[in-house]
């Protein structure tokens, strides 16, 4: 510290320290932002509270095309002091608004809330069937894909009724949007839960103009259920029909992406028998003869006879197992038939990946038909070869 030169340097260094470690640029404290974890999109009509605002002149220029509901967490309810037992502590807050631009609706919430919104933790997007009849899914998700906070890993669902109802819950301490994002874990138990569609997959599906399915939600009594699937038409991007739970199961087996689930049928005495799938293999083979395109579908499954209500049965014998195999095969074939009638005749939409198989195995033939694929698909012949094998009857024998 002897020379004045060093002193000057030290002063400069110290004043730099004064400025540098004071904090981060544009940092936000987590307590001061409103995280939203779910968005529900409904058909456009002013939300009840909005109606009241508007009646008092709080309006801006907009067309009511869509109503967006955000789920904000964590939200502490005001009445937490006092009696502890009857305390209805809500952990989330839903806020709705309508308009014709999703971002504008979100920004409109900023004049109603005390904290800025932040979308980094968005988990689910739910769109109602009614809205998807009018608007294409591409229009509705455009902002969500462009935004830099919302991640493409966000899950997309369709709701049979009003979408905002799926974000309500009667259960204490449960956030419905977290419930929805976790529910896909049940895919290991049932095929009724479809392969989750993230925003990123949705983007590729809409861009490729192929028809596809989204998981449908049904609400009732403050609870919700993943029930069936909604078909989105590839060319319009709009909802054209629904598949029920059994169709959805068959769809998963057909595309071979799940090997879980049960097949239930009656045996010759009219009693229930239930078969649990342990492994399932499916193969779609396209055949092209001239202009005629047909598909051969092979489904092989191995599993366990897990429940029978028939007291006269002898599950341990091979004869019995073979006879049951046949019955189960018939049942599965009938279920598949029902699905194919819906896809080919009723909705004329290939959501089971037949086109994709054709594109992979016969690109030249695919190129000719891809523009009009849904129509070509509805005319093509599809045959099934189904094999169901029981190789296990559990830890209970009744001989």
């Amino acid at each position, binding site marked *: 510290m002897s020379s004045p030169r060093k002193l000057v340097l030290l002063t400069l260094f110290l004043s730099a320290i004064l400025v540098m470690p004071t904090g981060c640029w*544009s940092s936000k404290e987590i307590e001061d932002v409103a995280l939203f974890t779910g968005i529900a999109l409904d058909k456009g009509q002013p939300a009840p509270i909005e109606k009241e605002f508007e009646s008092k002149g709080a309006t801006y220029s907009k067309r009511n095309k869509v109503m967006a509901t955000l789920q904000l967490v964590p939200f502490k309810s005001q009445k937490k002091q006092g009696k502890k037992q009857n305390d209805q502590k809500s952990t989330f807050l839903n806020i709705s608004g309508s308009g014709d631009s999703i971002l504008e609706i979100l920004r409109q919430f900023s004049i109603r809330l005390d904290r800025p919104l932040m979308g980094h933790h968005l988990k689910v997007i739910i769109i109602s069937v009614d809205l998807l009849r009018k608007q294409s899914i591409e229009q509705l998700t455009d902002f969500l894909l462009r935004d830099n906070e919302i991640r493409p890993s966000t899950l997309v669902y369709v709701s049979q009724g009003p979408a905002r109802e799926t974000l309500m819950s009667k259960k204490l301490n449960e956030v419905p949007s977290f419930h929805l994002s976790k529910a896909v874990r049940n895919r290991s138990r049932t095929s009724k839960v479809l392969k989750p569609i993230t925003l990123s*997959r949705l983007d*590729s599906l809409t861009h490729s103009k192929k028809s596809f399915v989204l998981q449908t939600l049904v609400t009732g009594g403050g609870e919700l259920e993943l029930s069936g699937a909604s078909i989105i038409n590839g060319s319009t991007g709009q909802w054209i029909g629904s598949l029920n739970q059994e169709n959805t199961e068959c769809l998963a087996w057909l595309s071979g992406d799940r090997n879980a689930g049960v097949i239930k049928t009656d045996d010759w005495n009219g009693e229930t028998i239930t078969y649990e799938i342990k492994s399932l293999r499916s193969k779609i083979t396209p055949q092209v003869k001239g202009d005629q395109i047909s598909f051969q579908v092979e489904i092989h499954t191995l599993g366990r006879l897990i429940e029978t209500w028939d007291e006269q049965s002898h599950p341990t014998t091979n004869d019995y197992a073979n006879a049951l195999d046949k019955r189960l095969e018939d049942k599965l074939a009938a279920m598949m038939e029902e699905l194919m009638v819906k896809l080919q005749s009723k909705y004329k939409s290939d959501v089971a990946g037949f086109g994709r198989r054709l*594109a*992979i195995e016969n690109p030249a033939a695919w190129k000719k038909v891809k523009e009009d694929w849904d129509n070509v698909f509805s005319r093509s012949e599809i045959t099934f070869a189904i094999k169901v094998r029981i190789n296990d009857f559990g830890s209970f024998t009744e001989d």
Partner: protein
Amino acid sequence: MFIRTDDRITTSQAIVFMTNTILGAGILTMPRNVTQATKTPDAWVAVLLGGIIVIPVILLMVKLSQQFPGQTIFQYANRIVGRLPGKAFCLLLVCYFLIIAGFEIRSLAEVTLFFLLEGTPIWAVVLPFIWVGAYLVSGGINAIARVYQIVFPISMFVLLISFAVSSRVFDIDNLRPVLGDGFIPVLAGLRATIPVFVGYEVILTLVAFMENPRQAAKAMIGGLAILLAVYLITVIFVVGGISIDSAMTSTWPTLDLIRSFEISGFFVERLEFPLMVIWLMQMFCSFCSFFFQSSLGVAQIFNLSYQPVIFAMVPIILLSTMVPKSLQDLLLLGDMIGMMNISLFLLLVLLTVVWLIRTKGMKQHV
């Protein structure tokens, strides 16, 4: 500042130098460019082919440089075509390096501001990088190569981990059919895949700094092989993970791949943040290489001393960074750099032809 007497790099340093120069912001956008050009899942074939096409170009540059041991292009261009045309060619090369340096820093800033530091002014991101770059570049090629040796394994590790984890969204059917539409889409894809190797012009100066210039060809091909492997893995994982339709429509497809899943229970749930932070270092390396080339060029063309030139370059690089007014401009600039790359290559071929005529044809001593 340091004064180095050992301005030489080893063969392995040359490999890393080559790789780190080219591997920058390009990897974040490359899958989009390539899939937009091919429109089929064969994007990876186009990348592979692009890399193979670049090999003879690299060999040509190495062979040319080896004829003038210890000299960079900025020194030997005069000897081939004479003072004025030589200087003009070298100035073009310097401009080209300057534009790429600006482009790299700007891409770095754009992606950082969009995903990481929303609200931070752009100069606050750009300026520190340029200053730190100036500091590194003033250390000379040896210092730069040493930094590269540290950064490269780290960034590769994080990149490969990110891709490995992304295998949970990987679907092989997204990559099929292979060559379903024949070879034409692949050839169309070359338009996008050759520019991803932009920057290999550094060979023209790099060979002069090598301890063993005889191993230059091996080193440069080695560097290219690493690059090609990284690009191939990137395209395969991005297309396999989010399919060509999504890769075509997203601005930063590689980041979108990493953003399309969450790993609950892993030590970071969202890998895009570690990847981006680490990749900043990689983009910084790429930027420094071009900064170094352009400063070296100016110093050698005009016979100036190297250190002051670096500081004179800082404002020019800042200007070059700020020229694109929007993201569209930036993407357009990226395409233009690809074109410049091809025209420069043609000029270089011309240079080689002149040299061949003069030495082999006219038996002159150049």
